[in-house]
């Protein structure tokens, strides 16, 4: 199976099962995209008709067909799956990452919040140190041979419970020495409570911080408002700018959400770059399809255009020496995830779990609030083995719609929560997400081709 597309003047062929990527000229593109539909002689003849006036000779066509056949022989083009429906290496009794819901409360009232303003359809609460400590102990004791353990402080708004964040980080640092493990911390925040002391602490202890900002003032303030119904932009932007300046190059992402109200999200990305933020992540809103901010099918052409222009913008900025990072365009073609990871998926419900303020375990933050998905507690561990096995068995091969999709080894079947919310099954697919993902990956790969071409 191949995927052929043209973007920014490049002709790109993806060979799905080998993961090979070829940048080709127009003749090769024509021959490859018609290769399986015509016999060799007819194909060569039609290519001569198509390109003969452009100075292409029979010898050129024959030589290119030989190159194509060599790639097929090397299993880098039109390759069949060499692996079949295998069970990816993944242990169901190893946990390596926790999302700690440090706070089920929030000091903003964002209209689109998937967590119902931080409460996940439940009561407001702050996680106690005791519950958090048990969560870290659970992680340490069940991490097997994994040395790098990831903990992200999430919510709600984690800065509303900063004391416990600090206590847990201190505890984790002690345990690192005993267990010979390394904790990598991330914290997501809306920025409202950032002050000097908190900024300095987070810069010292957090490997990564995720800072929520949607872009232009009018865009951000349409949906990200305070409980006194004021916009948050003027409160958070100066704080974020100072925070990032002090961060001195340590990892961060400005994390924006685009909705039906700002399908021209490239303008918001440029605005954030103008504010001095170079590490960016912008994601489509997820939520009920009947919500006024929900993205529609009619929005797709606009969004596709925005993604393509974003890629061009980033190439231009790089050329100027002012590069931007966009999370979904980050891709390492030669050292990306292995086949096992690509088949296994994101890790939710197995190696990655969410912990509520009460110590309940869920497959990930997006399932919290739905009691059907409670997996256990920090006291008892994962007790719902049926659910554990369901998530462990939810691989690329358990999603029937993914089998004919060219993006399968990049997407890994997509987000389990989006699948469940759309179809009622974690093995379904969220088609809208598929469309956006495929466009993003096409853009990301085009940028790699462009970079290679520039060298």
């Amino acid at each position, binding site marked *: 199976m191949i995927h052929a597309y043209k973007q920014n003047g490049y002709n790109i062929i993806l060979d799905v*099962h080998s*993961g*090979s990527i*070829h*940048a*080709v000229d127009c*003749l090769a593109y024509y021959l490859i995209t018609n290769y399986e539909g015509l016999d060799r002689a007819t194909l060569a003849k039609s290519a001569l008709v198509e390109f003969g006036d452009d100075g292409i000779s029979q010898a050129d066509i024959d030589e*290119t067909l030989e190159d194509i056949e060599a790639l097929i022989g090397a299993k880098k083009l039109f390759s069949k799956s060499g*692996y079949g429906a295998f069970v*990816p*290496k*993944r242990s169901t009794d*190893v946990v390596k*990452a926790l*999302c700690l819901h440090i706070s089920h409360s929030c000091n903003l009232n964002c209209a689109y919040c*998937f967590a119902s303003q931080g409460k996940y359809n439940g009561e407001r609460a702050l996680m106690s140190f005791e519950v958090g400590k048990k969560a870290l102990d659970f992680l340490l004791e069940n991490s097997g041979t*994994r*040395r790098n353990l*990831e903990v*992200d402080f999430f919510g709600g708004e984690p800065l509303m419970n900063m004391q416990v964040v600090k206590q847990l980080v201190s505890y984790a640092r002690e345990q690192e020495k005993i267990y010979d493990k390394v904790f*990598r911390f*991330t914290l*997501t925040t809306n920025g409202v409570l950032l002050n000097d002391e908190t900024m300095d602490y987070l810069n010292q202890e957090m490997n*990564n911080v*995720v800072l929520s900002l949607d872009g232009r003032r009018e865009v951000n303030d349409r949906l990200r408002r305070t409980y006194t119904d004021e916009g948050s932009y003027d409160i958070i932007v100066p704080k974020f700018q100072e925070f990032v300046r002090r961060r001195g190059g340590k990892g961060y992402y400005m*994390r924006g959400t685009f909705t039906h109200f700002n399908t021209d999200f490239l303008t918001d990305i440029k605005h954030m770059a103008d504010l001095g933020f170079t590490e960016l992540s912008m*994601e*489509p809103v*997820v939520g009920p399809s009947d919500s006024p901010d929900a993205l529609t099918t009619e929005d797709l052409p606009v969004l596709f255009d925005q993604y393509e222009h974003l890629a061009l913008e980033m190439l231009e900025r790089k050329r100027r020496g002012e590069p931007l990072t966009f*999370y*979904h365009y980050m*891709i*390492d*073609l*030669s*050292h*990306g*995830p*292995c*086949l096992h*990871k*690509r088949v296994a*998926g*994101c890790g939710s419900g197995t*190696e*990655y779990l969410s912990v509520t303020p009460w110590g309940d375990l869920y497959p*990930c*933050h997006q399932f919290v609030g739905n009691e059907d998905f409670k997996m256990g507690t920090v006291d008892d561990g994962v007790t719902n083995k049926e659910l554990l096995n369901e998530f462990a068995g939810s691989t690329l091969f358990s999603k029937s719609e993914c089998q004919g999709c060219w993006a399968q*080894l*990049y*997407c*890994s*079947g*997509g*987000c389990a929560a989006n699948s469940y919310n759309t179809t009622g099954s974690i093995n379904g697919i969220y088609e809208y997400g598929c469309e956006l*993902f495929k466009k993003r*990956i096409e853009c*990301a790969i085009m940028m*790699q081709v462009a970079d*290679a071409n520039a060298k």
Partner: protein
Amino acid sequence: MKRIVTMETRNMSTENGGCGECQTSCQSACKTSCGVANQPCENKAEQE
């Protein structure tokens, strides 16, 4: 004339990988959409 340029890509084989050290994508910047392909491999031996 080189009409086909093949990029260097990771070998998709069941025989390598599976160490489990890679970061869960939601730990970084997504949280609402999956980006497995955007993650790097964390296995140092694989990178050499």
